[in-house]
């Protein structure tokens, strides 16, 4: 639901960076979106297409990489992906924040961000 506001921040930021470098066009943007963020790639693309119209971003390519979550258990030292509840009736899998090894609460290290990794510019 808030994909539009995030994407409008993205478009503003990229235009600012492109201006700094006196770029003619933006060709490609690569985003790393954490699996635990609440952003839906399809809605992000839709917002991006609308927001980039009439700017130097128009017709550029948006690459969205979905990044795995990464958790750590302070109790047993487990370091890796969280467990998911895969109940077919929910249609999507739900992450569990309990250690897959010992069952203690885990700390989330990665998977919540929405990071602009790379912007390809034409000068």
């Amino acid at each position, binding site marked *: 639901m808030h994909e539009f*506001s995030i994407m409008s921040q993205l478009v503003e*930021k990229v235009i600012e960076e492109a201006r700094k470098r006196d770029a003619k066009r933006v060709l490609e943007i690569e985003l790393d979106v954490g699996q635990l963020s609440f952003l839906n790639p399809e809605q992000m693309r839709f917002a991006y297409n609308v927001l980039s119209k009439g700017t130097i971003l128009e017709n550029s390519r948006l690459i969205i990489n979905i990044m795995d979550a990464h958790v750590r258990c302070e109790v047993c030292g487990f370091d890796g992906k969280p467990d998911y509840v895969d109940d077919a009736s*929910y249609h999507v899998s739900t992450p569990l924040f309990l250690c897959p090894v010992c069952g203690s609460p885990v700390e989330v290290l990665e998977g919540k961000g929405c990071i602009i990794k790379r912007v*390809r510019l034409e000068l």
Partner: protein
Amino acid sequence: MPDEIEVIVPDKGEVFDIELEEDLLEANRKIAEENKQLLEKHRIRAIDVMGSVGSGKTTLIERLIGLLKDKYRIAVFGGDVTTTIDAERLKRSGAKTLQINTGKECHLDANLVRKALSKIDLNDIDVLFIENVGNLICPAEFPLGTDSRVVVISVTEGPYTPLKHPYIFMEADVAVINKIDLAGTMDVDVDELEAKIKKVSPDIVVIRTSCKTGEGIEKVAKVLGLL
């Protein structure tokens, strides 16, 4: 005289990549941190109250104001897409209220809260409740800079809310299961509901309330460190 350093720059028409590593969600987190510092400086305890439409967020805040208004000077920010219905209600309960209408957004963000903070006298407040927009998805992603985050659900939403919306429980410190007076009628097993919340968010404190009868309200105030 130092040697002249050769600088390589791309030519016109050339294509090149820049690496930014900029987190778009970080901007909100930074403002939230500034809000937190501002609130700490004025010794204000701030609580973000989240939950779906009709779960009982406004009624819970009204009840807490009723319980605490002789002890603290209380203010409330009411977040909604439009209308001032909730703010009017809360004003009658005796707290200073300020309505934040998001217009189109589905959540409050730290910047809207910063604006609201600039409109009130911070030296005149001990406790601030921020009622978020009724929504179980988006508010979770936007911390506001409060000390605690509370998520309110009610038994009338059925038994699956925690599993359908795990993220909001992950981000909250306290979960309130409201309308327990209706659990029998709704045929909802409250123990099972609590177990589901604990499954998706092991560290959360769960409190059962009926904002209608007043049951559990003192417990909520205690957990928030207000009693």
